């Protein structure tokens, strides 16, 4: 088990960071967040065609780059650091993973190359209003109709759901098993509307299925395990995204207090500020360790990893979301009044921290999930 990144991984990270600094500074983030689609198609095209970010963990046989979850999580971390508004998380991290985990070879050949190339944006419609990502509570149903299936039910919090041309939906088979289905977003019987997201850089949609025709990915036994693995990988990548954002908040707050003078001295010279900064560093470092360890464990069947991925992924999600929110609260406080203004960038990350806190389930949900999978 390695705790550090390879040279290639570091190079990939640096390249992405430079690209996002150049192409998606906060002025751009603010501009794009005001647009109807919520992302910049030109940046998306460059990320797909020039950087290959949309293809990272998709196997080469299906048009992907064949890298691992560690590389995917690095991309998520850099996207979180830059607060990049893009369908990367919804399409590449969530929907592509679900297809790769559940689909037959033919389905993967048909669906994944488009996502890997960036030309297709996909979304995973799994969570439901109120009960969120708890699969036991998924109530949407699927009934067979010849070779296809008909889906009925309401899905919510669908990340990048309005941008998607391809939808992967979770629904219950007549015998209660969980199935994952694919269908075009413009299918008859599927209607969607944008949800008013508090975080304008994270676009959510609601989808209503009223007998929409869909294909079952894989067989009737594929959906359950594929969903579990998809949730693990999404949690690992979200943890990466969150530690990226938390580190950025921490650095910006430190930079601000270092130039701010009150009572004739730098406010960074006050011990109360120094100690808060030290605690923030500690918390972010602990959360990073969790996120990196879980990502490495997702790639590696190392004997040294003594916990199942689900335990480690949920541990990372819980600790990173607590840390992100706490860091955001500290960061606003360290900025003082200006930190509460719309014009100060801190609020952008604060809102992302808030949406990340509950996206995929709360920290408490994931601590419970961690213990359910924990091998003592």
């Amino acid at each position, binding site marked *: 088990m390695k*705790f550090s990144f390879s040279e290639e991984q570091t190079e990939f990270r640096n390249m992405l960071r430079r690209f996002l600094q150049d192409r998606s500074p906060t002025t751009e983030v603010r501009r794009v967040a005001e647009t109807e689609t919520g992302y910049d198609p030109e940046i998306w095209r460059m990320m797909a065609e020039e950087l290959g970010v949309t293809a990272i963990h998709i196997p080469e046989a299906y048009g992907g780059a064949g890298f691992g979850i560690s590389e995917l999580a690095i991309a998520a971390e850099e996207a979180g650091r830059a607060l990049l508004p893009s369908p990367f998380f919804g399409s590449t991290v969530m929907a592509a993973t679900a297809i790769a985990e559940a689909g037959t070879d033919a389905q993967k050949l048909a669906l994944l190359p488009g996502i890997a190339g960036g030309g297709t944006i996909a979304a995973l419609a799994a969570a439901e209003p109120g009960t969120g990502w708890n699969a036991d509570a998924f109530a949407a149903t699927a009934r067979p109709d010849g070779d296809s299936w008909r889906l009925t039910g309401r899905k919510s919090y669908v990340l990048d759901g309005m941008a998607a041309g391809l939808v992967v939906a979770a629904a219950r088979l007549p015998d209660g098993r969980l199935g994952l289905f694919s269908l075009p977003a413009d299918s008859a019987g599927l209607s969607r509307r944008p949800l008013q997201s508090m975080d304008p850089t994270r676009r959510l949609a609601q989808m209503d299925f009223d007998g929409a025709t869909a294909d079952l990915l894989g067989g009737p036994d594929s959906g359950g395990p594929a969903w579990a693995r998809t949730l693990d990988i999404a949690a690992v990548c979200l943890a990466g995204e969150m530690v990226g954002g938390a580190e950025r908040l921490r650095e910006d707050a430190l930079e601000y207090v270092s130039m701010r003078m009150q009572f004739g001295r730098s406010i960074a010279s006050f*011990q109360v*500020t120094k100690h808060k900064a*030290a605690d923030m560093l500690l918390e972010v470092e602990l959360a990073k360790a969790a996120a990196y360890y879980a990502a490495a464990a997702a790639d590696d069947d190392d004997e040294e990893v003594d916990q199942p991925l689900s335990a480690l992924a949920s*541990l990372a999600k819980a600790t990173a979301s607590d840390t992100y929110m706490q860091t955001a609260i500290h960061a606003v406080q360290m900025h003082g009044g200006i930190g509460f203004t719309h014009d100060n960038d801190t609020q952008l990350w604060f809102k992302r921290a808030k949406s990340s806190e509950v996206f995929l389930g709360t920290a408490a949900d994931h601590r419970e999930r*961690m213990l359910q999978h*924990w091998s*003592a």
Partner: protein
Amino acid sequence: MADMTEDEVRAGVREWLTENWDPDRGLVEWRNLLIDSGWGVPHWPEEWHGRGLPVGMTPVVEEEFDKLGAVGVAKMGIRTLAAATILEHGSDLHKQRFLRGILTGEETWCQLFSEPGSGSDLAGAVTRADFRDGKWIINGQKVWNTSAHHADFGLLLARTDWDAVKHQGLSYFLLDMRQPSVEVHQLKQMNGHASFNQVFFTDAVVEAEYRIGGLGEGWKVATTTLMHERRGADGVRRYATGSDRAGRIYEEERAEVATVMAPYVWYPQRTGRADMLIERAKAAGCWEDRAVRQEVAKALTLARTAEWTARRAREAQQMGRPQGPEGSIGKLAASIVARACARAHTAISGPDAMLTGEDDGTGGVVAEILVSTPAISIAGGTDEIQRNIISERILSMPKELRHDTDRPFRDVPRNQVG
């Protein structure tokens, strides 16, 4: 010697051990033989009981000892700090007089640095050493001195110049503890153990030749001792019990280990004992209680992430980054781990958390955890000091304003003692 290969070292030590190792010898007799051979401390210089081998060869030598179950030189307790300090700063006289007794285990040591008025601020020591009639006369009080109640010698930091600025007015002495003017009292802690002592000096004497390092250079020498202490050279990072083999030499070694480890019997408990949580919750019948599960999960998460963070730092070092102030992050993490564990243990115990001994349901182990965890955020540098180190050395924030480095020490505001 220094350019021996690993195989040559392995063959050399194996050959010597095959000829000489005999578990029926007395411990001191064996160690004297071992010291003469140079295999007891192979990384020490050849003229001082070693073989001048690189430190990296030590594990190779130790492996060969372990294969035979051969006993090594005494290397636990404060004696290792004494050895490191004397090797680096001592005169030939000091090395001649003390090193062998340290390695045979016949003479034990204590560290006399902290004072009631200077804990975090060690260099503020006010124990005085005055030079009278060719001898140093020591007066004052030290505290938190592990093993002082049975030590033969002490590593003493004392003030020799009150007109110099703080760090330049200290000197370092090798003090004979077996004199009537040195009084040792055990200090009872809130967890009931007495792991430390207070030491009082009333005209105690150090002969002129037992000052170590130059006059006024005590802080520099103390830095060596502290560096080795931080590296865990005091051998207490892991709780040791000694070999369980039968034989006279092992019995003697076990007795030595028991004496050295006695102050640390509660150390596992001060970490919070994350390892006990799940089993305890199951045994107590509250493993399905959601509130308990949340507390246990938080504690396990912190314990794991602290461990992974330490491993990240170690791996970064192995890849060539120098050992930095990351140790402070680990120290601070240990404090929050211990507190989270204490909360989780309390949640599991419920009202039994009020009880101790046979009545707390764990033979007093949990009660000991609950009253021992406060030590972890104080001992070895308080959390507040660690936060200063992190903010100043890692985050490059401004240093604390101080009022002790710009004037003679006698003018520095300080605690009133006695």
